[in-house]
């Protein structure tokens, strides 16, 4: 039981980080940036390539920089941030005033495009990710605990906390919140709205890339399609927590992670239907509370 819970918290932490990315960009731009699933993937590959001694990119062999683990993670985060920024500048910026449907379609297309690029660069099959050296699994209350799970959960909670504090207490955070509330009013107050949106994308992408790195370390692989299912679950988490809210998104991630691990462990055939359960939760929520668990109803204006 403890084992399942710890595992669930670690998985949930990863979903939570990614959910925060979706949530904060949704808050500012009012759109679901499906491409965060691919930023997640690029982050993981960035760290993997940076840590490797030799590597294969687009079928050709390269000597990798073989950076130490902490520096490789930094590279992964930067790669994620750059990808996120480019996507925002090239694909979304021209659509600033387009209908929401166009933005969503672009978002899904960008996601597919990035996945194709990922497949081209890193191949169609999974690349193994060496497990970080964190020591042996240890026993607590009769349960075997993997140290990586503890690390993942701690990193996730610290990163989310830092991100939340940034948005809450710093000037750029205030600009982000102002833009989220009323873009036009923020612009009139002299806030460089485009810059704020780009910053939000970069910050969100760093969170997504971090989630991807942690994910690849936990499961020991990286692959071009690795971001899709976690991305979808993170979206479920963000909706669960009321999209736009940072703590809500993170808690939503934990709930999803715990639910699916518990289901996989205790529901008959639960492992096969693990993903169905998370998505079933979403469908159920939107049936019962279309505005999300913590979301508010939007009032239409005439």
């Amino acid at each position: 039981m403890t084992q399942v819970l710890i595992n669930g918290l670690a998985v949930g932490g990863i979903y939570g980080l990614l959910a925060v990315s979706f949530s904060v960009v949704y808050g500012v731009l009012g759109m679901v940036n499906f491409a965060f699933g691919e930023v997640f993937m690029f982050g993981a590959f960035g760290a993997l390539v940076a840590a490797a001694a030799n590597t294969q990119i687009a079928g050709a062999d390269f000597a990798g920089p073989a950076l130490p683990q902490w520096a490789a993670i930094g590279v992964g985060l930067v790669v994620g941030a750059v990808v996120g920024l480019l996507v925002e500048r090239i694909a979304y910026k021209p659509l600033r005033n387009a209908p929401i449907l166009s933005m969503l379609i672009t978002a899904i297309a960008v996601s597919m495009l990035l996945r194709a690029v990922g497949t081209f660069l890193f191949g169609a099959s999974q690349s193994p990710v060496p497990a970080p050296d964190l020591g042996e699994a240890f026993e607590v209350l009769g349960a075997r605990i993997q140290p990586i799970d503890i690390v993942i959960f701690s990193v996730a909670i610290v990163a989310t906390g830092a991100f939340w504090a940034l948005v809450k207490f710093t000037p750029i955070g205030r600009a982000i919140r102002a833009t989220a509330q009323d873009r036009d009013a923020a612009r009139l107050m002299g806030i460089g709205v485009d810059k704020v949106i780009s910053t939000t994308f970069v910050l969100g992408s760093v969170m997504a890339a971090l989630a991807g790195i942690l994910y690849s370390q936990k499961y020991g692989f990286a692959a071009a399609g690795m971001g899709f299912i976690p991305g979808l679950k993170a979206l479920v988490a963000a909706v669960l927590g009321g999209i736009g809210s940072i703590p809500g998104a993170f808690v939503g991630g934990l709930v999803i992670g715990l639910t699916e691990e518990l289901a996989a462990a205790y529901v008959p055939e639960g492992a096969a239907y693990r993903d169905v359960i998370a998505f079933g939760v979403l469908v159920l929520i939107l049936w019962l509370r279309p505005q999300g668990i913590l979301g508010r109803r939007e009032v239409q204006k005439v």
Partner: protein
Amino acid sequence: MIVKSSRALPRLTRLAIPAVLAIVAVLLPFILPGDRWVRVAALALIYIALASGLNILVGLTGLLDLGFIAFFIVGAYTTAILTVQLFVNQLGFDPDTLWWLFPISLVGALVLAGIAGCILGYPTLRARGDYLAIMTLAFGEIVRLVSINWIGLTGGSVGIRGIPPFAIGDLELTSPSANYYVVLVMVVVILVALAGVVASPVGRAWVAIREDELVASSMGIRTRRYKLLAYVCGASIAGVTGVFFAHMQQFINPDSFTLEDNFIVLSLVILGGAGTFWGPVVGATLWIFFQAIARDWTIVQEHPEFRTGFLALIVVVLMIVRPGGIVSRKLKLTRSGGDPERPAPRTAAEVGEPDPVEAGAPVLVVDAVGRTFGGLTALGSVSFEVRRGEILGLMGPNGAGKSTLLNVLSGVTKPSRGSITFRGDRIDGLDSDRVSVKGVARTFQTVRLFWQMTVLENLLVGAHERLRGWVPAFALRLPRHRHDEARALTEAGSVLEFAGVWDERTRRTSTLSYDSQRRVEIARALMTRPKLLLLDEPAAGMNESETKALASLITAIRDSGTDVVLIEHDMDLLMSVSDRIVVLDHGEVIATGTPDEVRRNPAVLEAYLGSDA
């Protein structure tokens, strides 16, 4: 004579495109080099059907569905399970004798996919668009995962083999050309039915919802129901297509439907032109043939991901450069162009039976109506009545609660307390579409037309309640509906002439002058045959002569038998046309009376000019 030919010509060009396409489609197996290309053509037809189905959702109604393939899966597995798992494996039938089962499979798929559409569509009644997109994605994954994991029923990842080919009696239609023609018949039937539905009240309701949901409901359209209907129609098309696909392939497994197919079908709709009729057809044809050609290229053979990647790139660029897609022909939402001769001006009210209510008797009774938003009281306790045969002016300074009152009267917002009675029926608490059907129509403070429609199409939306009917009847193009529609168009012509904008009838509303837009909006409201018309600042933004002309239009509306409530900031207009005036301030009625009485009322003067005046 221009008028005469303009009537005959569109009919010719309208039939020309489908005719040419049909000839090409029939000859295609003879033109194409070899069976491989005939198979490609058949696949293109499958994608044409899917894209056309998705277009109902994305293009016409403006609902994003990222899990559309789920309906296709439901259809394909329905026939596979029914035919192979049940009849062959369980009941021991010979698969070669099961051709009679095909129509039953079709009906089964239609029903099951329709139910799936309902399940998925239900939350759209309330959920926001982006939540919905996520949900459709999740729903699509659920269906796919179930099809992989429910091994007993679906054969798991191996799938179901031995699905019998198309057959008529003993004649098996297994050749690629035969398959192609069978699927072609399906596509033609789908497109013909779809064209019938699009150019009907159903199609117009869908587009109206996409354009402006609130206005659509103020025209008497039950918007939730029509959104759900869009899901059911789209899902049914996908389900039927799935049945044909399964029999064409003779096997299905989860690899037949990847996650990317959802995106591909969506892209084809966008590529061809969402919300157009031929867009999905063009997009699907171009892409499937391009893909088949590209398959021979070494670079694509080495990197199959380039195919989806390239399509994704096209979509990203397209959304920036040409969001409308390749086909730019606007959808025709009615099949006839209206009468070419200028009709006599007449409002819809004059068409109906004589009004049983005597002049001067109250028709709308507003009793102690209040509305609070959070802690803010927009309306305290408002009571007044509108009498038969009058124009009631509603005035008050900014923030007095006029617009809230109008929204409450028209069902856009519900009152917090009090009652509203219209001709003996309580209408408070009704949705705005029901209020409209009761005979209360409205216009909006800023003009809200369906900008992608022509003037006549806008007016036909106003006639929705009289024209609506059963979807299969529209799909079959029953003559009764054609006559109804022709009659409504004649009526629309008269109403447009009454409103002074008959000359603009075939123009798109986005190209009209401001004054004409206002008049078209009033005409559209009159098309609902209202007994009471609520006008929300109709003269805003008009110059003096336009305002004068508007005054005579408003008077003419009253004289033709429709009572009017007029909110207006232009005092000259309000004082000159109103029979009585109700003055609001701070959410309360402070004065009621004839224009002269109101003008001299000290409370009114104080509200407008301050206590020193």
